[in-house]
């Protein structure tokens, strides 16, 4: 036989090496995106009790929505619950680092913001957290993207990204959709 079995196996192993090279290129590009562009999965092992989160602490009703801290850090706190978000409309400034924090008192939810890399699951028992910078202004959709029960299809919020000049916190540092 013109091609012996060793030659066949050698050609296969050479091709396997090419395959490993190809996926290694992809892995390198992902490491580059993670380190240089700070694009990483939203891992955040921060337990919170879903049964009591509305009673005290960070996710009580009065504390929800966008707030600017004394140091100028912008944080939005949102509760995802069957079958709505509290609040259903969120204002955020463009071109500035913002933090979104989510928690749920009931079942699994999840969010994405259309046209951006913002995406996280919201799992009962944990606070989900995403840091990002919105570069385009306007109204974006923030739907619940994980099945959470029969009302799932009606569960979405609006994210209003405004220029820094129109982002005006009140005396307590709050910014809400109603105020405008």
């Amino acid at each position, binding site marked *: *036989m*013109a*091609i012996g079995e060793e030659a066949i196996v050698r050609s296969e192993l050479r091709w396997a090496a090419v395959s490993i090279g190809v996926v290694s290129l992809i892995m390198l590009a992902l490491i580059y995106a993670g380190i240089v*562009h700070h694009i990483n999965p*939203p891992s955040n092992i921060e337990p919170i009790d879903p049964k009591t989160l509305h009673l005290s602490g960070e996710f009580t009703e009065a504390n929800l929505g966008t707030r600017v801290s004394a140091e100028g850090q912008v944080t939005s706190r949102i509760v995802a619950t069957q079958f709505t978000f509290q609040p259903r409309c969120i204002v955020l400034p463009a071109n500035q680092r913002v933090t979104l924090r989510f928690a749920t008192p009931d079942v699994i939810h999840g969010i994405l913001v259309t046209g951006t*890399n913002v995406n996280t699951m919201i799992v009962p028992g944990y606070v989900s957290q995403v840091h990002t*910078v*919105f570069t385009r202004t306007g109204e974006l959709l923030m739907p619940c993207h994980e099945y959470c029960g029969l009302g799932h299809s009606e569960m979405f919020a609006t994210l209003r990204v405004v220029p820094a000049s129109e982002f005006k916190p009140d005396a307590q540092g709050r910014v809400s959709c109603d105020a405008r």
Partner: protein
Amino acid sequence: MTPEEELERVMRDVPRGALALAALSVGLLLVGWFLVYLLVFLPRGMVS
């Protein structure tokens, strides 16, 4: 030619064609991946 001789004849060319086809497909796949990476993913900005 006997079937074995026939096989021996074609095995002189195999796997050049398969290698070309596989390399072409994987090359296109890699180009496609990097196009999405550069044109869609990175412009959408940082999240962590």
